[in-house]
Structure formats: C-alpha cells, structure tokens
C-alpha cells in the first residue's frame, strides 16, 4: 500500500460538542447532554456499544441531523456554515452510499465536480485506499471491505483537515484493519483531526490517542488512554509460600485475590511495593508481573456500570 500524499498542509480544526441532545419522536433520548472536544493532530476513538448514540452524534456534528438542544462546531463553525465542507471536513458514514450501477471512479468524479476539485483527485484517493484496480468496476460487485475503502476515499477526496469516520473498520479483514490504523496514524501525524467511532475497542485502542466513551447517549468517560488506565494497575505475584506472602502485603486499601494454586493478584499496590514487602518478609517469589488493565476491561466496566445505573434509576425523563 502506498503512503498517502497530500497537496497542502491542512488547516487544523477542533471539533467541539456541547450539551448536544437529540430526542427522536419526542421520547427516545438518543443523545443526552453530550459534551466533548476533539483536538487536531490526534486520533480520537469514539466508543460505545451498539445503540449508544454514536452515529446520531456524528450526524449532528455533520449537520445531517438537527440537534434537539446543544450544538456542535468544527473549527468554530457549525457544519452547515462551512463554505465547501468537503474540502475541510471528510466524512465516511454508512458504507453503501453509492449507486450500485455506478463505478467507484464515477462516484468520486461526481463529488469532485461538486467540490470543484480536479478529477485526478478521484484517481489519487482510489490509489490511496488500494482500489485502483477496481476503480472502473460497478460498486454493485464490491465487497463490504471495498465499500468501506471507497467511503474512506470519498472522505479523503478534498484533502480535509478534519476526518469523521463512522465504524470504518466494519467489514475490513485483519490486514485492512492494520492498514486503516496506519492510515489514521499518518493522517493525525500530519496535523489532521481524526474522529473515528467503533463499537469494538480493539479496533481503535492501538491507534487512538484519546477516547470518548458513550453509553445510552451519555458521556461515560473521555481522556487519553494513559489517563484512563492510570490507577488501575494490578500485580500478579507467584510464590511457593502464598500464606506468608498474603500476610506480608495485606493492608488497608489493598485487595488480594487468589488466581491459581501459587498465584495472587494484588489490586492497589505498585509492583515495586509488592516486591519490597515480600523481600522484607523474606518470602521467595517466582513471578512478579505488573498487569496493566487494558482499555478493553475499562470499556466493558464503564458500559456495564452505566447500564446498571440506568436500570436502577429507570429511564431518564
């Protein structure tokens, strides 16, 4: 796969979502007072289980859905007020937004005409997403992964400073997902704003600098991956003298669970502290491993927690 080449350095654009709310049909609260920002030069993962309100939020950011309350701006402007939006913001929403009887190249040529871009731009983005050889085939015969690539090509057409991608990894094979990660990283390194949604954390956690986690239309957490995983370290320790080890490290604020015949998992102590305490008590260790909580567990914990809260409180009014 060739590296993307862009004509000009992009103008940075920050996405601001403020108190954004969407109520469908007067009662379904799809998005509920959601606020977050997305910074240029980074990849932001927009995460949440299916039905969390991710797509509705992105569609409000892009001016396709009118918010019930609150607002969203890109580079300080609502999407509808951007002059030629596709040259500033590139978006890929559903993967099948093309006429099946039209070729990929013609689909993009039409977009070039509207945006006032030269038609060579269509060929350039098709090359970029690896569809050059399929450019003159009708979209009808495209696989899901190829449609995703075409959607990405359309988003990249105007060499935009801001990219908004809804579930771009759906339908991509593992190779394609790896390629996508590389592309997103590259685009962010060029100073672009990249907002990418997913209901599967592992698709974005390797590439995202920040995550915004949504559940039931509400913000659950936002922050850098480092921030969100801090303070959740666990230590796995193995010893032939488990009882003595347990006695040495047990104290207030420390939770210990036995995870094997000779192994404990310790919550609330850093790996150095566990090592020091066992050394001081003269307990032999066979293993001492810092087990960082991965975001997957956090994601799962946060969303189920939010679900439990909602169940207890009943539906918000």
């Amino acid at each position, binding site marked *: 796969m060739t590296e993307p080449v862009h004509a000009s350095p992009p103008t940075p654009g920050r996405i601001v979502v403020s108190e954004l709310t969407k109520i469908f049909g007067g009662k379904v609260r799809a998005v509920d007072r959601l606020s977050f920002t997305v910074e240029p030069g980074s990849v932001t993962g927009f995460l949440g289980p299916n039905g969390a309100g991710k797509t509705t939020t992105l569609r409000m950011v892009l001016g396709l859905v*009118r918010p019930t309350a609150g607002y969203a701006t890109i580079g300080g402007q609502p999407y509808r007020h951007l002059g030629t939006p596709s040259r500033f913001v590139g978006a890929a929403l559903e993967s099948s937004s093309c006429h099946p009887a039209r070729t990929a190249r013609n689909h993009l040529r*039409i977009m070039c005409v*509207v945006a006032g871009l030269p038609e060579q731009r269509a060929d350039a983005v098709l090359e970029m997403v690896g569809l050059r050889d399929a450019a003159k085939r009708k979209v009808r015969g495209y696989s899901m992964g190829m449609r995703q690539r075409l959607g990405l090509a359309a988003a990249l057409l105007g060499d935009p400073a801001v990219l908004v991608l809804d579930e771009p990894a759906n339908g991509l094979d593992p190779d394609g997902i790896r390629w996508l990660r590389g592309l997103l990283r590259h685009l962010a390194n060029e100073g672009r704003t990249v907002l990418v949604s997913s209901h599967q954390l592992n698709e974005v956690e390797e590439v995202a600098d920040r995550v915004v986690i949504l559940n039931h239309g509400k913000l659950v957490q936002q922050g850098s991956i480092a921030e969100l995983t801090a303070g959740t370290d666990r230590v796995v320790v193995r010893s032939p003298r488990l009882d003595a080890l347990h006695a040495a490290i047990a104290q207030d604020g420390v939770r210990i669970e036995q995870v094997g015949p000779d192994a404990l998992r310790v919550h609330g102590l850093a790996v150095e502290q566990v090592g020091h305490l066992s050394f001081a008590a003269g307990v032999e260790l066979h293993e001492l491993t810092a087990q960082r909580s991965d975001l997957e567990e956090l994601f799962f914990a946060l969303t189920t927690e939010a679900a439990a809260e909602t169940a207890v409180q009943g539906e918000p009014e």
Partner: protein
Amino acid sequence: MIRLIRAEFLKLRTTQVWFWLLMATIAVSGLLIVAQIAPSDGVRRADQVPDMFASSSTVDIVVFVLGVLAVTTEFRYQTITPAVLQTPSRWAIVTAKMITYAIVGVIYALVAVVTQLAVAVPWLDAKNVDVEFGNGAVQHSIIGVFAVVALYGIVGLGVGALLRNQIVAVVVGLLFLLVLENVTLAIPGVRHAWPYLPNGASAAIINTGDTHVTDGVYLISTAGGVLVLVLWAVIPAIAGAAFTMNRDIT
C-alpha cells in the same frame, strides 16, 4: 450552482437509465408517427400536421420518470448522505436538479421531435402532403412539445421529493397521469377540473385547433396551460425541498 448542475448531469450519465429511456423516447415517438400516417384514414392533409407532431409530447412520461428517479434513487441508495454532506443547502440541491431536468426534458423532446421529423417528412412527401415549417400551427406544436416535456421533468422531481420511495413514486405518478386523469374526464362535475390537471394543461399548451374536449369541457389558453403546468412543476418540488429541508437524514 454550475458545479451542482454539472454534477447532476454526470450522475445521470454514469448510470444506464438515461440510455434505455432515450431508446424508449425514440421508439414511442417513432411509433406514434407510424400510427398516425400508416392507416388509410391517417394524415393526408397539411392541416393535420400540427396535431401529428403534438403527439411527441407523449414522451413527457419518460422525462417524468427520469425526474422521479433523480430524487428517489438518492434516497434508495443513500447517496443523499454524501450529497447533503457536500452541499448542506438542500434548496441548492433541489434547484440544481430542477434546472438540470428541465434541460434534460428539452434534450429528450429534441430527440422525439427529430425522430418524428425523420420518419414523417419523407413519408408525407411521398404522399404529396406538405410539411410547412413556416406554418404558425406547426411551430406552435413543436415549441409546445419542448415546453411540456421540459416541465414534466420537474413535475417528476417534485413527486419524487414528496414521496421519496422509488417504486411508490413511479407507480403513483404513472397511475395519476395515465389513468386517474382520464377517469376524472369521465365523471360529470369533476371533469371540469381536468383542464387544470397536468395532461389538461399540456393539451392546452400544444393545442392549435379546437379547444372543446368533451361535454362542456374546454381547454384553457396556451399561456394559461403554461402557467398551470409550471405550478404543477414548481409547487411539489418546493414542497418536497421544504419537507426534506427539515428532515433528519439518518
């Protein structure tokens, strides 16, 4: 706006519908001429020529279908999403389509008229019937065909924008134009509305002879016909645009 119109033409050219409907236009307009000249009681006098050429207005149905498809395929294949992302003003999108499909109508009308002339002129010449292009009535018929067919493209857009569903819009539109309007003509009382329906207005635009239709029903004037058909074209298109303006695209 120029870009949007160019894009609409490119959309039309990059699928195959335009080709098959153009073939239909040639077939229908050609067959209508044959049907009017071939029979023993067919066109034999110069004063029958204007009405004969007026028959090419039948291709208004073809352009109507093109107009319906121009809007409904965007919803069917969700191409409306990239379209609105590129052009957040939905009025601009509808206006570009209206201008485009008026031009498309003129092109299809041209094809229909040329087909009819190509068949009729040599044939009538062989029968010693003069086709007088200097004749006001002949000119009126041909210009009327252009006006009617161009406006039907926009009528189709409006119907498509209001109904959105491709099959529903095509079926409802064709039933109305081909069946329902003729039915109204058969019902006493209601039949007086017919001159103000799309077919009645088109008949008024291309008519060069008697304005009497049936029991007490008369065509309105040419100018009146143009006005009524313009309203049939523009009101549904504006209503459709206003309706889609405030709708979320989900």
